[in-house]
């Protein structure tokens, strides 16, 4: 259903600014990356040539082989936080970019909120990238409780002067009939709108990739290659979103119409 409309949207809106250095694979989803809200702290941090990002997430923010906790290394890790650091550093020459992570599998939004103050305090980031929603959906956590946890986390980050980008669940076709992401995705969209923070719509992007055959998300493979390419693309697109939302020029929501 949605992807038909998304395709239509893609045609109608035009493909915007396709970046040449991207692998073809990532480009299909650029229309989903229009930032709706600004990231003023990131703008400031880029101007000050020193950008720190904290990625807080659960199992879908890591891959086997990359260390879940601690530093996302110097762009050598294979999961998207490390790829984000690499892409940001490439696109922001002269800016010192550091991505730290607080990633642990099987955590609900509320569980992540509990460790959030300490993690923010440790890295003092200009930007919190918060991936959540999957585990809450799997455990069928009360949606009200989920929304409240999101509210709380965003408020904590804002209170210590960090911008926030939310990342929703992965599109996982094989488990689609077992995990009802619907309500949680809606809640994230609504909370993001309410707090005026950008939402990185990982679900729709991956769904589009699946639709267009960019990646075979159905494949039953123990190998890491597809997973690594997916995370690489997510890292790049996330960097695009962050950079365009931090551009000091006029906001794109007004500018493009």
């Amino acid at each position, binding site marked *: *259903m*949605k*992807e*038909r*409309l998304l395709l239509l*949207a893609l045609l109608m*809106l035009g493909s915007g600014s396709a970046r040449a250095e991207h692998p073809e694979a990532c480009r299909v989803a650029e229309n*989903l990356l*229009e930032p*709706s809200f600004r990231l003023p702290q990131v703008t400031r941090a880029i101007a000050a040539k020193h950008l720190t990002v904290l990625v807080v997430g*659960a*199992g*879908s923010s890591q*891959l*086997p082989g990359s260390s879940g906790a601690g530093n996302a290394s110097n762009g050598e890790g294979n999961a998207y936080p490390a790829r984000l650091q690499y892409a940001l550093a490439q696109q922001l020459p002269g800016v010192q970019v550091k991505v730290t992570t607080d990633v642990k*599998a*099987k955590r609900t939004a509320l569980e992540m909120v509990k460790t959030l103050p300490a993690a923010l305090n440790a890295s003092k980031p200009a930007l919190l990238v918060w991936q959540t929603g*999957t*585990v809450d959906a*799997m*455990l*069928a*956590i*009360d*949606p*009200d409780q989920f*929304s409240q946890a999101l509210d709380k986390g965003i408020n904590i980050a804002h209170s210590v002067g960090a911008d926030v980008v939310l990342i929703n669940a*992965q599109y*996982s*076709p*094989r*488990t*689609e*009939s*077992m*995990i*009802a992401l619907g*309500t949680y995705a*809606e*809640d994230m*969209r*609504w909370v993001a*709108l*309410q707090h005026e923070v950008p939402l990185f719509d990982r679900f729709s992007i991956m*769904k589009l990739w*699946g639709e267009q055959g960019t990646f075979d*998300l*159905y*494949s*039953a*493979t*123990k*190998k890491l290659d*597809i*997973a690594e390419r*997916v*995370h690489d693309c997510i890292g790049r697109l996330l960097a695009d979103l962050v950079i365009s939302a931090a551009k000091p020029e006029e906001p794109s*929501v007004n500018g*493009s*119409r």
Partner: protein
Amino acid sequence: MAPVSTERDLRLDLFRGLALWLIFLDHIPSNAVSWITIRNYGFSDATEIFVFISGYTAAFVYGRAMRQHGFIVASARVLKRAWQIYVAHVFLLAIYLAEIAYVANSFDNPLYAEEMGVLDFLKNPDVTILQALLLKFKPVNMDILPLYILLLAWFPPMLWLLLRAPSIALLASASLYALMWLFDWNIPAYPSGTWVFNPYAWQLLFVFGAWCALGGAQNLSRWIHSRVVVGLAIAYLIFAFAIAMTWYFPRLAVFVPKFVGEAIYPIDKTNLDVLRIIHFLALAVITVAFVPRDWPALKSRIFWPPIVCGQHSLETFCLGVFLSFAGHFVFTDVSNRVFTQVIVSFLGIAIMVAVAALISWYREAERQGGGPNPPAAKPGYAGGDL
């Protein structure tokens, strides 16, 4: 207050049949064809239609039984129906368990390490199956039947009241709905959370359907056909459509004034948001205004397929759930191209129609004396089967 007509209202069968088709299409994950279903163009979806019409037919069938044979006999029949639905639910559960056990054994991808954790409950089937039998553990898309079971189990006293004091019964139902919002009532689920379709909320639509069947619709008809009401309904549907478009075109979201967003979101399906009820009512008003009860086309061949499905709704619903599992299998294991999705969707509906037609034929054959029941035991299913 007597039911106004004993003749079967084919519109009920038609729209319940269509609702069953939409539910089937929506239940196949990643189905491009579900693009056409009403949930994408407004606030309410096929669930509202299904619950309302189920309440309507339940009152129609068991209301007459209660008047003719008394409270005890009618209650026994209602509970027997609830039991049949419970058995159907357990049957679907067995199919579901087979599906996920297969996925757990055959699928492995490091990208989805987290998501595969959803299969962990297979490690302690004792607890899971017991919780499922208690209707606390409900797999995705298997929430409607438990709701239906509960609504029926609770229906006899409500029907009794509806037959005596319909306004008071409707008021009681609305009060329960209001209290649910006030005190956050719901039924706990397993492993956590609450029922996806909150029975305290959804009972309102069921009782409203029953109320309409027992003469309420007649009382409302002057309102329903007034131009002002039809105009308001159309305006509301357009508003809902505009809001729905912002879900697909994020750029349009900036046109929604902040106060409107704050007023309408989140549109709560679990607790049957008022916006959803109004959306359903608006759809109903438009339908009643433009599809008259004696519309000749209702008896034409074009509408026969959905009508026959609507007349055997429990069987068609269960089959639809099974077919949506099967369809998802085809997508994951054979092909997920849009062409396949269209074929699977149409084939699924064709199977639903064929099976419903077969059941119709069998019932008719039985009724004419071929079956174990003597023809005298003709069921009083004037409003269709439940």
